[in-house]
Every structure is written in C-alpha cells, then in structure tokens.
C-alpha cells in the first residue's frame, strides 16, 4: 500500500515534491564541510606527530591520556591509559568532543538532513518506507547528550589552561605572546561559547525548573544561556572551523613550515 504523500485519501499528486527552490544546497554544503572535517581530523588524529610546538599544544591532543606523548611541559596531561596504549593518544581524548558533537541537537539536525535525508529539506520526502526516529537503539542513545556535555566542559577547561600556558615564549618564559596564542585563544572562546550554548546546558542551568521565581540566580543564568543558545548553529560551525585551524596552526609550526610570529 502506498504511504507518505501518496497514502490513500491524500491529494493524488504525481510529483513527490513540488519545491522549486535550491533545497538541496544546504544539505550538500553540510555534507561537504563535515566530510572535509572528518577526513582532516582522521588524518591528524592518526598522525601522532607534530602536535606540540613549545608553548602550543594542538587541541586534538590535549589532554594526553597515555604515556606515549611528546614531552609537553606544564600541559594538563594525565597518563591514565599508561604505557600499553601504543596508538595515537588523540584517539582517546577525541571520543569526548566527538560524542558531544555527534549527539548535539544542532548537529543531529545537520546530519539527519545531510547524510540520512531524514528529511533532506522540509516537505521533501524521505527515501525509506519506515521511520522510528529516536525511539530505538542506537538513536535512543542521543538522550545521553548531557553526559557528553559534562565531559565537554572538562575539555574546555583543559583547553583554557593550554591558552594560559601559551602566554610563554618558545623557551618557556612567561609574559610573551605570539600569533599562536591568539589562534588558541580564539579557538577556546568559540569552544566555550558553543559548549555553554548547548541545549542540555540550558536545561541543566534552569530549563528544568518549573518556578523561575524561586531560583532568581539560575533564572539569570538561564536567560544568558538562552540568548547564547539562539546562536548555537553558528557557534557549532565556528568552533568546528576554529578547532581545525588551531590544530593546523600548531601542525605547521611544529613541522617547521614557518616560525610563529611573536608579538612580545
């Protein structure tokens, strides 16, 4: 039996959809950018090289949770995985930001539309005959987004520390600043803005309350996060670009492609 817009009783229209605008452009751009990021980050995560150029640490490799990392003075490393881990240490830590973005309410929209065509665009039919949404495994796991948010806050704190230690020169002396410091600073600001604008954060801060009047401080925070939340999509993309650019910058400096310009 026909289903969807061809289901019995509905207006019998031959065309599956009648949209005349470029509805395919947005999912196509999404897929292109996400694939480019996946390719780049996979290469860098497996590279296990050129991720530290005193005093800069690549955000892909911070914190290092294994013992096989380069020596990175003052970095927030914790070799919890000991010396048995022989692969790239980035593969351990990247699980957390990856999980945070994979379960993020904005990215879900982006990849459901771009990769799953579920739907590609509004009023454009899906190419499948059954749909259960987020009611079954594995998509029911999207409900654990808040746990990834908690980890994302810890990662953002560590990246903030990395910015702090970037106010040194290449010999480790404090009170200096280079272009890399600015790159890492811009990245961490965008990471924080993206993390705090998260829908789960909005809920935890105050959204779960029934009476704002009994919790004036949380209400203030909720208002702040709500304002930030309206820019969640833009922050999701901006922080994705910034984290890749920050890693690329450290890679170029570490591999000797150019010297970090120092301001003072």
């Amino acid at each position, binding site marked *: 039996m026909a289903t969807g817009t061809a289901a019995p009783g509905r207006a019998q229209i031959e065309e599956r959809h009648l949209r005349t605008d470029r509805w395919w452009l947005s999912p196509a751009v999404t897929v292109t950018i996400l694939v480019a990021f996946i390719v780049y980050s996979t290469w860098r995560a497996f590279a296990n090289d050129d991720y530290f150029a005193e005093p800069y640490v690549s955000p892909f490799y911070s914190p290092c949770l294994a013992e096989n990392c380069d020596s990175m003075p003052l970095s927030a490393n914790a070799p919890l995985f000991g010396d048995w881990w022989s692969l790239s240490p980035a593969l351990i830590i990247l699980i957390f930001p990856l999980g945070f973005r994979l379960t993020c*309410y904005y990215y879900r929209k982006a990849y459901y539309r771009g990769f799953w065509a579920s739907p590609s665009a*509004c009023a454009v039919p899906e190419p499948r005959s059954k749909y259960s949404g987020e*009611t079954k495994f594995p998509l029911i796991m999207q409900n654990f987004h808040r746990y990834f948010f908690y980890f994302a806050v810890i990662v953002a704190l560590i990246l903030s520390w990395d910015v702090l230690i970037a106010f040194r020169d290449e010999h480790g002396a404090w009170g200096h600043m280079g272009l890399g410091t600015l790159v890492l600073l811009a990245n961490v600001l965008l990471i924080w803005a993206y993390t705090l604008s998260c829908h789960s954060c909005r809920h935890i801060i105050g959204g779960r309350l029934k009476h704002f009047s009994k919790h004036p401080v949380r209400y203030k925070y909720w208002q702040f996060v709500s304002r930030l939340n309206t820019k969640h999509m833009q922050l999701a993309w901006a922080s994705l670009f910034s984290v890749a650019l920050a890693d690329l910058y450290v890679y170029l400096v570490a591999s000797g492609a150019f010297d970090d310009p120092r301001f003072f």
Partner: protein
Amino acid sequence: MSYKANFRVWRGDVDSGELRDYTVEVNEGEVVLDIIHRLQATQAPDLAVRWNCKAGKCGSCSAEINGRPRLLCMTRMSTFSAEETITVTPMRTFPVVRDLVTDVSFNYTKARQVPSFTPPEGLKAGEYRMEQVDVERSQEFRKCIECFLCQNTCHVIRDFEDNKPAFSGPRYLMRIAELDMHPLDVADRQKAAQEEHGLGYCNITKCCTDVCPEHIKITDNALIPMKERVADRKYDPLVWLGDKILRRGKTQ
C-alpha cells in the same frame, strides 16, 4: 503594476485530481489568496478553498505553494517573479476533501488526547496565583493559531502514514510542553510525552519551526526542552538519584 501570472492549482477530490493551469491577473500588493479569489471570481467558481481572516491570524488558509507549506494569505506575490509558474496544492499530510481543502480532524483527535490544565488538588478557579516570570516561557506557545502547517510539514507523519497513531505532532507536543512548564500544572506530562505522544519520533530537524507563521521557536523552546525533561525522567540515573537524595519534587 499588473501582470498575468501562471498558476497551477490542484483540482480534485479524494478519488482523483490533477494540477490545472490558469493565467490570472496579479496587481501590486496582492497575496496568493487574492489570486485564488480572483480565480474563483473569473475562471473557476467551484474552486474550494478554506479561508477566513485574511490576516494570518485564523490559520484557515493553510496550503502548499511551490511545494512549501504556507498560509495563502501571508504569501506575497511580490516574492515571485512574473515569469514564474506558481503551484498551489492542498496540504499533503491530511486527507483531501476537495481542491485546496483538507480534512484536518487528525489534529482535533490528537488535541483531545492531551489532558487539560490540571491545577493542584483543592485549588479552585479564581484562586490561581502565579508570577509572571513563571508563566512567560509557556506564553510563547499560546501564540499558536492552529494552522497545522507544522503538523503538515513534519516528516514523521507526512512521509509515514503508519506513524499517525503513535505521534501527536509538533503542535501537540508543544501543548504538552506548555502545560509541563506551567507553574500550577501538576499532571505527569513527561512520561506521557514520550510513551503516549511519541516525542521520541521527533528528530529535531526543525521544519515545524521553519514553517510557523507565528515564528514560534517550536523546536528550541518546546520540543528540545521537553526531550531534556524526558531524559531527566527516563534516561538519567544521576538526576533520579539527585531527586531521591534531595527529595526534589515536580514543583521545583
């Protein structure tokens, strides 16, 4: 300035139908509903269309224009070029009655399944007291004009007729969110949202928000907060433990 516009309008009923071509005069400042009315007056007197206020407030003239769910009365002709052929069809999620008129009773059935506002026991009408700051969040959802464009565009039921019994659609999940956020409502809305009204089917692709003529942020302010509240109740053992230890109730 006037010009002749090319229109394709779906004509038919539940048994059969087709897109018919018309050439109609368009004047400056007109909306699509004006053109449909001119069509009725000059070429197709039996063309069925539901409308009422012509001001985007009654929610009657919902249809699809060039494949996009919209109100006929709020779609300006100036958004199209003079050469463009404009296709007007009925909403494609609901059974058609005739021409541009659909049977939207699915929505009324779903509306009846949401228990009404439930104040605390012993609190009589006239004794309700609440602070503005506690109710203003859910007041956004009261702007809904029940045009059912969000229900029409939602792929969960638009593309999958089988899901209609299990899924109430964004309009009624928003109604549940409105009541759940209401400071005086004590009914258990969260489990019902997931288990009886199919909140889990929503994959937050935001088409409901995109088409809302009242610009209600349905996904960000109603559906996602409701998903988070359901996660508190059903998927988060830490919240459950915290509620037990701190003896937090539903009226927090």
